[in-house]
């Protein structure tokens, strides 16, 4: 028993070690809320991997202080995400909260974080609510506003001479934003639309919807299915033999998470399908090359855009903490430093709009096989340059 107590005491001392060792006192605390359970954990793990890599790249330090990251699981549920955020700001008293894959989870959690005066940085979700009237001085996004990527896709469809399209998306906040985004810019006819059940028990069998899409006579199909639903959709799309009659355009569906698994399943039908995105692994800039090369080396797969955004989130936070010399007590100074976006982004630089969403380029990318036989995406063309989301005008900042 004595031995055990001694062991426990030693352990406690060892755990407390780094905190004592840090000459500049308390570490900078960053809370990271993402999905680490349920099948959507695939996304959460990729974000966590990228955030860990970013921490490595900055040597675990910013503004002369150690960095401590606390990961929390939202279980793909808004209420769990809110609890996790409450815990981070009240119990752990973190300086920044970031992560957030899902718009509905972010919307449920944002009040807890922002009311406590903590900075909230979305590394993925970009709901219209937080970009427009509900914008907040302490909220920043390193990803995009939900409407933007599908808006770029609508433009790409116009440019490719597609006259009619069939739309499929999940029935939740982001799904509706995405559909609205495509409809905002696409000039042709929407032949039909399906919003399918989403959440922990999301619909994964799309036989009925694919049959409708085929019968609708549309020239192309546009979908938004993030996470495992994307893999399921593409499997069924290829099994139904639609790749010739109904070319696939997508947003947030064909990505570095789904492509390796589609390759395992031998679904070559997905190669050549097109999607819009603010970033691609082949974007030519120093920060991106370092990120993609090291990610590939460390984890053996291409980073997804979720990973890229998480990596950028860490770099954005570092740029602000560095700028204020590690002194986070002056919130106005930190906010001003964040708003400058003064760091080498893996997407090649961007600036924040008045609503703290990035004003950035959007590219059309195609699914291709790389020189080593891995499936990835390649930029085909630039659809938008320095594009700002349509909700920024409603933001009072």
């Amino acid at each position: 028993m004595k031995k055990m107590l001694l062991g426990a005491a030693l352990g406690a001392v060892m755990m407390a070690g780094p905190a004592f060792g840090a000459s500049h006192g308390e570490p900078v605390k960053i809370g990271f809320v993402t999905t680490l359970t349920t099948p959507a954990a695939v996304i959460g793990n990729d974000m966590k991997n990228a955030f860990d890599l970013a921490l490595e790249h900055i040597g675990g330090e910013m503004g002369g202080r150690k960095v401590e990251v606390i990961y929390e699981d939202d279980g793909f549920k808004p209420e769990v995400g809110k609890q996790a955020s409450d815990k981070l700001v009240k119990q752990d008293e973190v300086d920044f909260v970031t992560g957030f894959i899902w718009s509905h989870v972010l919307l449920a959690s944002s009040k807890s974080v922002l009311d406590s005066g903590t900075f909230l940085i979305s590394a993925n979700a970009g709901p219209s609510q937080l970009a427009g009237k509900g914008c907040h001085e302490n909220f920043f996004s390193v990803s995009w506003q939900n409407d933007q990527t599908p808006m770029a896709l609508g433009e790409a469809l116009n440019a490719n001479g597609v006259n009619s399209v069939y739309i499929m998306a999940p029935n939740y906040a982001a799904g509706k934003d995405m559909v609205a985004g495509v409809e905002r810019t696409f000039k042709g006819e929407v032949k039909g639309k399906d919003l399918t059940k989403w959440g922990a028990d999301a619909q994964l069998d799309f036989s009925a919807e694919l049959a409708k899409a085929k019968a609708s006579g549309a020239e192309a199909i546009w979908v938004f299915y993030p996470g495992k639903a994307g893999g399921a959709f593409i499997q069924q799309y290829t099994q139904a033999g639609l790749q010739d009659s109904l070319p696939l355009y997508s947003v947030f569906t064909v990505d570095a998470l789904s492509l390796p698994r589609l390759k395992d399943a031998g679904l070559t039908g997905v190669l050549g399908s097109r999607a819009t995105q603010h970033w691609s692994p082949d974007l030519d800039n120093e920060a991106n090359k370092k990120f993609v090369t090291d990610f590939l080396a460390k984890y053996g797969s291409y980073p997804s855009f979720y990973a890229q955004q998480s990596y950028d989130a860490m770099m954005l936070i570092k740029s602000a903490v560095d700028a204020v010399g590690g002194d986070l007590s002056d919130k106005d100074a930190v906010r001003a430093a964040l708003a400058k976006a003064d760091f080498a982004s893996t997407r090649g630089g961007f600036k924040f709009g008045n609503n703290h969403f990035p004003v950035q380029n959007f590219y059309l990318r195609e699914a291709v096989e790389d020189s080593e036989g891995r499936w990835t995406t390649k930029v085909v063309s630039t659809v938008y340059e320095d594009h700002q989301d349509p909700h920024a005008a409603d933001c009072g900042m």
Partner: protein
Amino acid sequence: MDTALLITQLLNGLQLGVLLFLLAAGLTLIFGIMDFINLAHGSFYMVGAYICGTLVALLDSFVLGVILAIPLTLAVGYVAELVVARTLYARDHLDHVLATFGLILIFDTAVHLFWGAEGMAIPLPDWLNGQIAVSETILLPTYRIAIISVGLAVAVGLYVLVTRTRIGMLIRAGASNRTMVQALGVDIKRLFSLVFAAGAAIAGLAGMMVSPITEASIGMGNDIIIVAFVVIIIGGIGSVKGAFVGALIVGMIDTMGRSYLDQFMKLFMSDQNAETAAPAVSAMLIYILMAAILAVRPQGLFPPRVR
């Protein structure tokens, strides 16, 4: 209305129906004969899919993977019965629910530890990956036809087993009056183990059949087990025939709701409201049906005869 589309959707409904039947058949027998509520039945669906996926990757043959995965899932079911279920038959339903819920958590975590969170795509051989022209205008994925065929074959096999064999007679007798069967000297423990393990294997088969479409993932069985319970409540608990008819009804209603409800709702509300409301309402339809059937025929459509 487009007839070709309607027929395609009916076949899609049939495919969903037979998949549900594979899951519900074991559930209804376990519930009916042993009076045992097995929430973890969906876990066998998941375990079957993962075992099959691993074997397919190892052997590079989908058919061989399925054939070998069935006895392995049967073994998992047998062990689960031996270790957990057997000790609980005499307890009340609340204990069943608690224990099998725990079993779900154990299975989910075990799969997470063993296979990771990513889920597993199961590749199909080329001859299953194509499409079959049912008529000039109707083109269905070959694999969906394969699911329908396997499901119907299992249904016929179960029908013959339950109505034409000695074991089937005991199963039916067990569903009607357990105590009497026991009093007649039948080894009821062995019968229970057999039914439980076979039910698990059939649920596993359903998981194997579905995962080339949706990928195998953690908790995949937990979503569908609720629907399987709806099926057996509609069909009548303990009746394989009821499970079959119930599964087809639920499969059809779900598919038809997803196919046509939005068009129907656009007749009397704005397009935008119909688009948002239709998926929500179509997800509810089967529960509305269950409530209606419970109100009119609480014992279900085809309850086993009990004295």
